[in-house]
């Protein structure tokens, strides 16, 4: 709005700057033309007067010649002297006509001319009379006659001179008038020039001030706009750089035009090398489970022409092969006409979030299982207690029949084994105190010693290497349970003469300092089918002897310690199985509120 007004004003000023001098110049030219015209007119009048004077003087001289001829004739009576007289008469007739015409605009001079001509006519009559007398032989030398002729000629001379003098006077007047006109033209040209110059300078200055005002306003506006645009750009830049999500923008062809630092980190590309590169090359995404390439977001956005959330369980593979679980969305960038000018991708690293989710799900399962096992255990413990009491009493009554008594005691043992499993499950939810410092090498040595005595019995070799020789925080009883379980499994997986190797190494996982304990056996290994079920309750390969709760419980305990447990196995059976347990040096392990709730709920049944 304001810019438009400035533009109008600018045009107005420009018009003025051009039109005003043009107008003034035209006026000046017209003035000059008129003045010159007037000067030329006046000069023409002077010329006219000059001609009148010239003709009058020729007539006058002709008359003088006539008189001179006449006098000579009268004195000599020689006809030849009459020649000028006669010539003068013929000659002047024309001139007098011309003269009469030239002065037709001036009555005063006409009157004078008439007077002069009258005087000449009178002299002419005298001349004719005198010539006639001479021709008839009369005496023409009479002074009286001569005198009369002289008088008449004098009279003519007088009148003609008067005419000429008047004409000369007129000429002088006209000449001076013409000269004045010329002076006026000169002066007026100078004055006009000065005047125009003055007007120009005043107007010009005013217009220039206006113009420069308008220009300054325009300049200020432009500068303000530029500053605003700059600020806007900087603002966007800062926002995009500060934002916690990764942002990638592309053009319509899918070539990258922008990436923010988070996007650079996740993709492993920096903006400089990525700019102009196809998005699919930089933003490599696959499905978490199938590892199949996920549809290119450019195509998807173009196909659907709206904001799209990308497929779930998407994994971004960075330039150096690192993988991130991401949660992302793509939106079309539209130009003013609404056509798609590119897309902008916004995504974030949800790796941690995903693992938390998984942990939460696992905890929920655990809590549910805990509640179930608590109530099942309650229902089992009572009848088992009764049954074992009955069997015990029965066995007491068969002291005299040792064989029957043994059968009964065996039966009681089997019944009590059920109770033992049940207690195992329940003990998962035993309330614990805060973690204490655990000497890991001692703990491992203790576990190994116990197992060597009870299960290995010298028939399997167990080797322990303490690459980590320090303390970790945790619950010693629970950790002992974990390692007992894992080492026991390893020993049981080997045949006689097999060996189990236990070695610990200090390490870091997920940014936490800790220890990785590997328990490797050269036993039968685990089938792929079994592997997926390892950590679920009641999964067992040991048919009768195992409860199938070992690894499930172990994992729960390790997780409680904020650690991880992994199993790798070569199916062929030659390399056996390796269980790797990571435990952080420091832990916030404590019984969770959920677990307490589950336990209390169980008790209240």
């Amino acid at each position, binding site marked *: 709005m304001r810019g438009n007004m400035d533009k109008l004003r600018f045009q107005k000023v420009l018009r003025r700057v051009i039109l005003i001098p043009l107008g003034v110049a035209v006026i000046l030219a017209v003035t000059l033309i008129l003045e010159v015209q007037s000067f030329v007119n006046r000069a023409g009048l002077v010329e006219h007067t000059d001609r009148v004077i010239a003709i009058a003087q020729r007539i006058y001289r002709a008359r003088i010649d006539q008189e001179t001829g006449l006098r000579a004739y009268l004195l000599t009576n020689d006809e030849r002297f009459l020649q000028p007289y006669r010539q003068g008469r013929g000659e002047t007739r024309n001139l007098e006509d011309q003269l009469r015409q030239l002065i037709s605009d001036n009555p005063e001079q006409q009157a004078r001319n008439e007077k002069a001509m009258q005087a000449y006519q009178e002299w002419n009559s005298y001349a004719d009379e005198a010539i006639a007398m001479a021709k008839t032989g009369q005496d023409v030398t009479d002074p009286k006659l001569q005198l009369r002729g002289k008088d008449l000629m004098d009279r003519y001379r007088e009148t003609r001179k008067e005419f000429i003098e008047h004409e000369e006077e007129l000429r002088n007047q006209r000449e001076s008038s013409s000269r004045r006109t010329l002076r006026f033209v000169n002066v007026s040209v100078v004055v006009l020039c000065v005047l125009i110059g003055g007007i120009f300078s005043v107007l010009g200055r005013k217009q220039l001030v206006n113009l420069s005002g308008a220009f300054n306003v325009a300049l200020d506006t432009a500068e303000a706009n530029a500053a605003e645009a700059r600020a806007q750009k900087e603002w966007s830049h800062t926002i995009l750089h500060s934002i916690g999500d990764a942002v990638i923008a592309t053009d319509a062809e899918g070539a990258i035009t922008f990436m923010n630092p988070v996007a650079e980190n996740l993709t492993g590309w920096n903006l400089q090398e990525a700019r102009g590169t196809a998005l699919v090359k930089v933003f490599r995404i696959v499905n978490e489970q199938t590892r199949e390439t996920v549809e290119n977001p450019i195509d998807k956005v173009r196909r659907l022409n709206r904001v799209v959330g990308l497929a779930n369980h998407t994994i971004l593979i960075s330039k150096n092969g690192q993988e991130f679980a991401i949660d992302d969305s793509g939106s079309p960038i539209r130009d003013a006409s609404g056509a798609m000018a590119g897309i902008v991708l916004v995504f974030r690293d949800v790796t941690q979030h995903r693992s938390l989710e998984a942990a939460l799900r696992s905890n929920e399962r655990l809590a549910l299982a805990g509640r179930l096992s608590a109530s099942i255990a309650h229902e089992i413990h009572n*009848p088992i207690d009764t049954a074992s009491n009955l069997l015990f009493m029965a066995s007491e009554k068969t002291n005299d029949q040792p064989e029957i008594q043994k059968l009964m005691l*065996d039966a009681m043992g089997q019944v009590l084994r059920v*109770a033992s499993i049940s207690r195992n499950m329940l003990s998962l939810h035993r309330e614990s105190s805060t973690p204490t410092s655990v000497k890991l090498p001692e703990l491992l040595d203790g576990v190994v010693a116990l197992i060597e005595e009870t299960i290995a019995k010298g028939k399997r070799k167990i080797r322990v290497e303490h690459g980590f020789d320090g303390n970790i925080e945790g619950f010693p009883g629970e950790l002992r349970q974990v390692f007992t379980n894992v080492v026991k499994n390893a020993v049981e997986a080997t045949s006689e003469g097999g060996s189990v190797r236990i070695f610990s190494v200090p390490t870091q996982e997920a940014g936490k300092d800790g220890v990785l304990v590997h328990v490797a056996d050269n036993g039968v290994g685990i089938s792929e089918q079994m592997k997926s079920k390892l950590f679920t309750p009641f999964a067992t390969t040991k048919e009768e002897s195992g409860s199938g709760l070992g690894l499930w419980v172990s994992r729960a305990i390790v997780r409680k310690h904020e650690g991880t447990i992994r199993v790798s196995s070569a199916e062929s059976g030659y390399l056996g199985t390796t269980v790797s347990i990571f435990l952080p040096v420091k832990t916030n392990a404590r019984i969770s509120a959920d677990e307490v709730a589950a336990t209390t709920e169980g008790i209240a049944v």
Partner: protein
Amino acid sequence: MTVSANSNGKVILCVDDETVGLSVRKMLLESQGYRVLTAENGRDALVLFSSEDVEAVILDYSMPGMNGNVVAERMKELRPDLPIIMLSAYVDLPSETLALVDKSITKGEPPPVLLDAISRLLNGNRQVQPKAFSAK
């Protein structure tokens, strides 16, 4: 079946809402020479406790109406020296309960464990000789 002289017909109050379990336990204890009183809930137990000369109590923890902890509390208020064994299906009893009673045993332990505990609490020296059995 040998009735230990040490049991001496001592009176034991058994409290449990599980009727079958309660009667079998009564039989077990009687087979060891004890006199056994039974109650199926806390209130009945407290009535019996005030009227009879009870020398030891075997209490279930989880019972409708009044749990074992409350019952034990009332009894200990009246007779702080009375031996009480908490016999529960749960392995994770509250610590206040564990502090309150003289012994806690989980149901499903071998019967000699209970008998041994009672015997010790009543006279400090009787031992039930467990027969060989295998509880793998």
